């Protein structure tokens, strides 16, 4: 039986130094771990960066990933967020252009339904800003791709995550 693949989440505290991102990214590629997203930014302590990493893998591989991260000198702390209550959001921008008047109206309407903000606007083009979970963003993207595939540009930020205060919040 093939081991069960599952999406995993790691929050990683690392030294905010040159080369640390390369070290972590290289660890995934060098050991053939299947990285799906990685975001990084400074924390409240400017000497520390925090990465949010998601990957698909079975239990055994995931254990190995955590151990390998832990043994890296540049890594301060590895938190496994997979089964913890966390807040997790991704930013998605979709730029749509060459839209007809009725298409503009449709986009505005659908954006309101999806709860997506129009953050920039012209007569026949606009930018949507979506701050949602990764999978909800995928749905949003999928919708606009269906109708505007040749007239769009999309960019996704990758998820950032933080552990919940109230243990039930997701």
């Amino acid at each position, binding site marked *: 039986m093939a081991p069960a693949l599952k999406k995993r989440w790691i929050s990683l505290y690392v030294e905010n130094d040159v080369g640390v991102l*390369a070290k972590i990214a*290289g660890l995934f590629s060098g050991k053939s771990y299947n990285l799906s997203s990685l975001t990084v930014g400074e924390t409240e302590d400017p000497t520390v960066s925090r990465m949010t990493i998601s990957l698909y893998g079975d239990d055994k591989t995931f*254990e190995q990933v955590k151990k*390998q991260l832990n*043994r890296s000198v540049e890594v301060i702390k590895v938190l496994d967020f997979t089964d913890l209550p966390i807040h997790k959001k991704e930013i998605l921008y979709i730029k749509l252009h060459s839209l007809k008047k009725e298409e503009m109206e449709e986009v505005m309407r659908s954006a309101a339904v999806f709860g997506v903000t129009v953050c920039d606007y012209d007569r026949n083009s606009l930018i949507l800003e979506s701050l949602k979970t990764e999978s909800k963003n995928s749905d949003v993207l999928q919708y606009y791709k269906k109708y505007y595939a040749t007239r769009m540009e999309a960019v996704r930020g990758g998820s950032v995550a933080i552990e919940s205060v109230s243990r039930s919040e997701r």
Partner: protein
Amino acid sequence: MKIKGTQLFVKALVEEGVDTLFAYPGGMAIDLFDALYGEKDFRVVLPRHEQGLVHAADGYARATGKTGVCLVTSGPGATNLVTGIATANYDSVPLVCFTGQVPTNLIGNDAFQEVDIVGICRSICKYAVTVRRREDLGRIIKEAFYVARTGKPGPVVVDLPKDIQQALGSDEYPKEVSMRGYKPSTGVHMGQLKKAAGMLEAAKRPLFLVGGGVNISHAGAEMTALAEKLHMPVVSTVMGKGALPSDHPLYIGNMGMHGNVAANTAVSECDLLFSIGTRFNDRITGKLGEFAKDAKIVHIDIDAASISRNIVVDVPIVADAKEAIVKLTEIVSEPKRSGEWLERLQTLRQEKPIRVVSSAPLTPQDVIEGINAAFPEFIVATDVGQNQMWTTQFIQLKGRSRLLTSGGLGTMGYGLPAALGAKLGSPDMPVVCVSGDGGFQMNEQELATAVCEELPVVICILNNSYLGNVRQWQEMFYGGRYSCTCLRKRASCAKWCSSPKAECPPYVPDFVKLAQSYGIEGIRVTERSEVAAAFEQAKKNTKAPTLIEFIIDKEEEILPMVPGGNALSEMVTEVKKEGR
């Protein structure tokens, strides 16, 4: 007081107790070498190639247990270290490698002799760092030595830009290290250890599997005491060889791809495999599904990432080998077990010993047994391939004797420079290098180092005029198609050739003449009756190396062999040869 970066560098080495620095100068390291001029506290050794340099530092470290220290220039000086750094990494050897670097304002400009050595080495070392501010220099060097030697030891790269070397700054070298990302594990989980001890007492066919970790933590004596207390058989990996004296009644032998029948049978039939300090790589396990399939497995290792990676274990224990062995010896009670299992393995060891079956006038077995006979204690450094496996099969390690070999990476060219480093670190011990004719040529330039440093190492070249290990695979698994493994082949030969012939061109180089060109004694041995005399002659050269070329059969095999991917119980013990 303000001092230059280079002066702090020298001060740091002195404070770290470095007695030997392996160093090769160049443009971006010239300031560092200038600071070394006049240095009285340590020896500076100049090898002839940076690859030889790093292997020498590695041999020094393995022989002494101290950290090997390298200093090279930027660019090619640094990239020439790469193979040696990876070699040390896979065998957990503590090294600190200092590389010169272009000034910080030129980094990224494709400046002359600029490479991103930290980037290149990231995946093959324990830690790599560029010093970007003069005020960080002392702390980073301190951390480098600390990281290299603690926990699971390994190589550390410290890249030193030229402007940092020249800059004035504090003369303080820190006494303490505090790294929030690096806390080597200490202590042993007693609950797990008690569980393991209980399993040891209950097992009917228990077996110790000893890996390189036991040697790295210098736990040979403790391991022997534990095995004796429990009357338990012990097998070792190549890297674990020597943890128990090779002639100890409880030592069954090396297991794995070229292990002996008794040791591999022991692993296949035991009901408890108690393994210490091994990462179960593929050369050890053979086919994973068949590996120790009837056994519960206990695994002690300092590296949590080595546990349950290749094989799933029943009781994992993250700990230093020595600490765990000592604690285990205290808590485990002597079992009431019949001696049947041990006796069976001992009998099997007697009945099916490893030997080279050959009609040749001189075999590799004669040579390695000649080393055993010539020296009561010794350090032997091997190259890689058949010479390495024959050495691990026949060498007898007792007392302070050590085997230095590139077990993880399998680096040809390792043997000679490692032997030189070992001799520099342990001048009182006889040091023997066992190499093949192929691997020797990968770093033969280090003969000059041996001569100039006046190192009386005994260099044994087993010359079969082939890249023998690959040739053997070609013979056994590739229909005898000797593709690019003959070292006598010339452009005028038939393009492809599948066997040595009487009319083959002569071997180059003539190793005896090569030795003579370095002003040292070269001896050619063609019969087993000459082996002892050759070693006796070599012992007389107390200020210079001796090169002994042993002419062995061109198609000698290393057996038994577990072909890659087979179970350990599926050993090939002979290869049929026509006309033999």
